[in-house]
């Protein structure tokens, strides 16, 4: 029996997802034995033309990481969709838009301006901005056109499964691969991770007081961080309660609060808004002034509550 064909592809990403696969270490050999990797730009020397030559649907499953922020990536994932039986959005960026999705809180013009025109080291009197098509003495050069906003994978193509995380933990990858190889898969559209939030397994959950209220928020650098106590009980914003579990609370074990890379659980769509509802409920305040005083101690709510999920919020991006 022929081994199932598997592919990996990356869009607007950092390479951490590839690194996560590499981090499977000895286990990668088992995976490699069971499948036939036909495309993986970061590790194997296959090119786009190789993919185009493949038969439609011939790849059993493709893992795609990264957000989509250029027309080239869009085209490529459409191509891969056609060639693949299953598409798995791999990692926070393709699942939720991820960190590149933070760009949706600003706009393309500002990004280009900050990247090429302003700043202490840009020397650019001609105000050169990279162009989709630019002439050169040797012929026209092409660059992908940047999209107005970064998108999660399922906002571009049909996605069968999601593996969350930034980075994706080893266990989730192995579980997912096992499930795919054995055909033991949950309904389409499932996130291949636990259905409960981080608090479910977090060691620090036990340390929550009977009635949790917060009268002032501290930023992590402002106070000594207790290594055992629940961050919220210390007045430090932790996205744990509104973030899908399965990450083994790695950040929290590193003594830093959760920033929500696993996204919300199934019953919640908009992670940041849900967090507002949950967090604000805990304020120890009863008057406008008291509430405002507590809100004043919270900085950058959008960038914090939607650290990884701006693209998958209801609004998806800054609207004006």
């Amino acid at each position, binding site marked *: 029996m022929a081994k199932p064909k598997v592919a990996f592809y990356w869009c607007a990403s950092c390479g951490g997802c590839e690194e996560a696969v590499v981090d499977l270490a000895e286990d990668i050999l088992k995976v490699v034995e069971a499948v036939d990797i036909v495309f993986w730009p970061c590790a194997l020397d296959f090119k786009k033309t190789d993919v185009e030559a493949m038969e439609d649907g011939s790849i059993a499953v493709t893992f795609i990481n990264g957000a989509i922020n250029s027309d080239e990536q869009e085209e490529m994932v459409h191509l891969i969709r056609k060639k693949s039986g299953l598409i798995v959005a791999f990692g926070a960026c393709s699942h939720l838009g991820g960190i590149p999705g933070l760009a949706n809180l600003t706009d393309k013009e500002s990004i280009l301006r900050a990247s090429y025109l302003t700043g202490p080291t840009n020397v650019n009197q001609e105000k050169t901005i990279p162009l989709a098509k630019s002439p050169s003495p040797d012929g026209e050069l092409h660059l992908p056109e940047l999209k107005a906003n970064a998108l999660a994978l399922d906002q571009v193509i049909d996605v069968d499964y999601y593996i969350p995380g930034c980075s994706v933990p080893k266990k989730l990858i192995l579980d997912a691969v096992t499930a795919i190889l054995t055909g033991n898969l949950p309904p389409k559209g499932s996130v291949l991770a636990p*259905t*409960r*939030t*981080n*608090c*479910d397994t977090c060691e620090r*959950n*036990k340390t*929550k007081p*009977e*009635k*949790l*209220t917060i009268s002032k928020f501290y930023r992590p650098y402002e106070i000594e961080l207790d290594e055992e106590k629940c961050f919220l009980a210390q007045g430090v914003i932790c996205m*744990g*309660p*509104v973030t899908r*579990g399965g990450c083994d609370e790695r950040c929290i074990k590193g003594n830093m609060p959760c920033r929500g890379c696993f996204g*919300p*659980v*199934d*019953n*919640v769509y908009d992670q940041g808004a*849900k*967090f507002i*509802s*949950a967090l604000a*409920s*805990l304020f120890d305040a009863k008057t406008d002034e008291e509430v405002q005083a507590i809100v004043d101690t919270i900085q950058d709510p959008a960038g914090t509550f939607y650290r990884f999920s701006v693209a998958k919020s209801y609004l998806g991006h800054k609207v004006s």
Partner: protein
Amino acid sequence: METIKLKINGFEVEAFDRQPLIEVAEKLGIKIPTLCHNPIIEPYGVCRVCTVEVRHGRRVRMVTACNYPVTNGIEVFTESERVIRNRKMIIEWLLARCGNVPVLNKLAEQYGITEPRFGRGTDDCILCGLCVRVCQDVVKANVLGFFERGPKRYVSTAFDQTSDLCITCGACASVCPTGCITVEGLQEGIYKEMPMGPITPIHIDFMQAVPKKAVIDHDSCINFKTGGCKVCVDVCEAEAIDHSMQETEKEVDVGTILLSTGFKLQDGEALKEYGYGKYPNILTSLDFEVLNNANGPTGGKIFTQEGKVPKAIGIIHCVGSRDKKYHEYCSRVCCMYALKFAHLIKEKIHDCEVYNFYIDMRCFGKGYEEFYNRLLKEGVNFVRGKVAEINDAALDKSEEGKLILRAEDTMIGTVRRIPVDMVVLCLAVEAQEDAKELSHFFSCSVGRDGFFIEKHPKLAPVSTAADGIFIAGMAQGPKDIPDTVAQAGAASSAMLSLIQQKEVEAEVVTAMIDEETCSGCQICVGLCPYTAITYNKDKNKSELNEALCKGCGTCVAACPSGAAQQKNFRDSQIFAEIKGILAV
């Protein structure tokens, strides 16, 4: 106790052995004069006025009746010639010390003494010692005592100084036969504090009190000050009085609770324009109710403070009610009791002019409008308009000493100036000050006006948002007696049926927590005002008690897992609504 027989003035009588003679005589209706005797104090036999003749066999003796113990077979004469002679002499001697004391003069008159042989002294204390004994033996304050001896003997306090030990109970003054002891400022003070006159520390609150039982006022009872007195204990035949009883807290398990905490009348002094507290003849409705009460201080007669029968009385409706400055609501009961007042005044003082100042006449109940019509016939004046001001600025002689009401009469479209002798303010009824505190205690709520809020104004008028907590009466809002009785009946029926049910009906909009998705983050736990959510440590789950949940949905909104949902208000339902109403 052994019973013996004796004869008094020829009547044979039975008595207890060694019973004081004066008591036995009194039982027979034979009055023996005395100055130093008081039944609550041990007899002392010092004034000698109660001297009587006792014969036992052949032995004849003159004894003081107050402290002579009777024995079997004695014969007593209280008015024999010898007795009269002796008594006269005794009175004359007393007059020699206290020539101008009324009680002695009265006795002297009775015994035909016109000019005492030993002259008239100028003292007013007969040294009977009642005051000293009551202070020592009864009150146990030990403030008074005798000083010096012989003719110089006198009653005073230690070193003649004002005593710190004196509790100003006034017992000495009340027992003093000559009236030579007064407590300075006491009467005045009592009357000022108690407009209905002084009450004793042990008293029945008011005539209509239910249950109609005596109570002891802890603050004024002597026993609680000195440990003495207990006169009431001695005289109470039912032996019902026990000063050692303590306030105790009892825990009672109940299934339902009725909050019927009533109301409070608005403070009249808060309304400066009406001069309550400044002019003595401005009364609140409750003041007038007391004044007019047959059991009240005037026996139901209507007098001004100066003791005059008023010729004109103004009754002002809606004081503090239906007024944006105070209470926007209608107090509901004022119109009808104001009409009642007018009617009673007319009944008692036929020629008195009664003016009712009103905004609207709200005679909403059965027979009420008829009553209003009756009053119109009785000649009560009705002025539609609010009184703007009350003062005593007289324009001419006829207005002097009167209260001047200025009000616009909207019926005739002019401002009127009406002098009256007395004004009754129909003040707003208000919620009890601590209603809000109580509402938190019982997990129900009060409205902006401070009255308890019913669960539904039409469908659940006696229930509250908290199951098992019911409300009735003015605590829920202004209402008259028939409505209160009706509501109380409804509330008690509702309570009974709840108890009978044995099962509690849950809200249809309660929250629910999906165990599969709950991560046990506990955020919801502290948010529930009804403590319906508890954290199960073993399962690491939040658990919801549907019987306690009232369905506000706060936990649902806050649940970061979406594990909490609300029946009929699920997230998905609301999202669909949002989508729907924005579809076009």
